[in-house]
């Protein structure tokens, strides 16, 4: 009789210990999954930020840069490049991009591609378009600057570079 009671006590103890163990295991699992999801989110943000910085570097290449400003694109240079048919393959190879477009955001412009005949009454320049699968594109804000011959001064507007390709996903 005494032995039986002792066994029940041991069983009770074992159940309680198991319940506590399961409780802590569940709490631990919840904590780990929360941390992992946070880390994953953080790594996505860091990757996206690095891509934006890379896009800014593309804007700083001599073919596009505006002197004296680290975040500015020379719009006149970009329009000339856009008119030069061979630039698409050259840029696709140089930056590892299969798509690159510059959008003029503010002030608002007439819709249309900026080629030599239409410029400045246009809203976008497609510098690279290899017609391949574009994948996820990234964008970065830039200032688009040009020399205004009528006003005899430099004029800058707000723009955005949009690009996609393997060159942006290597970071």
């Amino acid at each position, binding site marked *: 009789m005494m032995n039986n009671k002792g066994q029940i006590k041991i069983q009770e103890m074992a159940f309680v210990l198991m319940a506590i163990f399961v409780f802590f295991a569940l*709490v631990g699992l919840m904590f780990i999954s929360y941390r992992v999801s946070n880390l994953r989110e953080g790594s996505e943000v860091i990757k996206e930020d690095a891509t*934006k910085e890379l896009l800014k570097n593309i804007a700083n290449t001599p073919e596009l840069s505006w002197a004296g400003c*680290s*975040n500015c694109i020379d719009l006149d240079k970009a329009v000339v490049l856009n008119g030069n048919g061979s630039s698409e393959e050259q840029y696709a190879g140089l930056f590892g991009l299969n798509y690159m477009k510059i959008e003029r955001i503010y*002030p608002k412009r007439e819709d249309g591609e900026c080629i030599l005949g239409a410029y400045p009454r246009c809203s976008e320049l497609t510098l690279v378009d290899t017609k391949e699968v574009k994948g996820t594109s990234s964008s970065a*804000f830039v*200032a688009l600057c040009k020399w205004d011959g009528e006003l005899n001064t430099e004029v800058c507007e707000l723009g*955005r570079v949009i690009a996609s390709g393997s060159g942006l996903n290597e970071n």
Partner: protein
Amino acid sequence: MRIKNKKGQEEMVGFALIVIIVAVVGVVLLGFALRNPGESSEASSVEVNQFLESLAHVTSDCDYNSRNDFASMEELARECYTNPADTCTGSEENVCNALNESLKGIISKGLDIGTEKYYEGFEMNIGFEPKEVGEEEVEIISLKEGSCEGRKVGGEYLISSSRARGSIAMNLVLCLE
């Protein structure tokens, strides 16, 4: 009878111990959750920083020095701080008003802001930040639109001031759902 009572007490102590352990774990988890950056904290964003840097170079419609040389947003902010009574040549609009209107236009065109959009609202502040401790900060422009209760991302762009006692800071906070 005494032994029975003692056994009952032991059971109760065991139960209380388990409750205490579970409560401690709960408190630790709660503390951890509260210590993490909450919903209302603001994370620095490369996108916002790039937007501000580009915005600072955008040319406005205001020529305040009558030299047919339209000021950039950066120059307009500096002028609004140093000579707030100045007006734009031709339109006679106050430089601070011109800055205000241009900022509104650029933000509305450049960023996707509004109800049911990616960003629900924004807060923009331009102010003078002195170098010396003890000197007072001066607010130049303050803009706010939409609701700003959820997660926030922000950035800052510093403009050197001609008075060299500090710098003019452009701060933009974008509010997500």
